[in-house]
């Protein structure tokens, strides 16, 4: 019984790590880099909820890898990450106050955001498609 649990624990741990990776990339790393660059606070907030969401999706995808339900589960975290980033960046339209001056700056980051969404879609689709190749190879 103990041995039978090992692959399940491995799958769950793999899913937790995958979920945390998506959380770190989309909700922490990208907004933090842009925040430091623009010197304006950009935070997603609700950290625990987002971690729970990404970890549950990652775990579900990992455990159900051989089931067809894993097809959308593989794509959803990437799209969800891109959506959270879209909301955090206010659709790419930011207003940056210049400290100590009366200047007010509007900035449109939508080309970057569109590229991130497009690449997430591409990577998510490819990951979803990999279900068929994994099934064919078994």
């Amino acid at each position: 019984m103990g041995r039978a649990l090992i692959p399940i624990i491995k799958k769950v741990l793999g899913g937790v790590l995958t979920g945390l990776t998506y959380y770190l990339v989309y909700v922490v790393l990208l907004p933090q880099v842009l925040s430091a660059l623009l010197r304006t606070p950009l935070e997603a907030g609700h950290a625990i909820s987002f971690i729970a969401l990404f970890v549950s999706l990652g775990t579900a995808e990992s455990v159900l890898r051989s089931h067809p339900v894993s097809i959308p589960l593989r794509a959803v975290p990437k799209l969800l990450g891109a959506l959270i980033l879209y909301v955090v960046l206010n659709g790419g339209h930011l207003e940056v106050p210049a400290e100590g001056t009366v200047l007010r700056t509007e900035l449109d980051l939508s080309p970057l955001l569109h590229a991130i969404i497009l690449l997430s879609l591409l990577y998510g689709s490819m990951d979803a498609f990999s279900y068929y190749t994994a099934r064919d190879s078994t």
Partner: protein
Amino acid sequence: MLAPAKLGIAAVSALLVLALLSPLIVFLMEAQRNPEGFMYVKATARPLNGTHVEVTVAVLYSGTVPLRDFAVTLNGRELAVGDVSRGNNTRVVVLGAGELGGGPLRITALSYRVAGLYYIKVHMG
């Protein structure tokens, strides 16, 4: 079979995002390094005749990233300067005498696209 392709796409995605961000990073770093002399915009007007004035907008820019669609809002009216590159960029526009209103010339906003990608509008006052 798809694992190398997925890894390749992830690596290319990261590089592409970095490449897309690089003009903005360079522009902001140059602006922060030299805030006083990074960009200087001056507008002057002289009457041509009783009905028209000649407005000269000079943009002295010391950055290395080209700025596209540069425009100056002068007394509430937006004047297109065009593309701006390192050095002195001047644009002369002839306007009707009443188009800039009365009083001294006042620049209220500047707008441009950093490397043709990122639209920035700076409101003054």
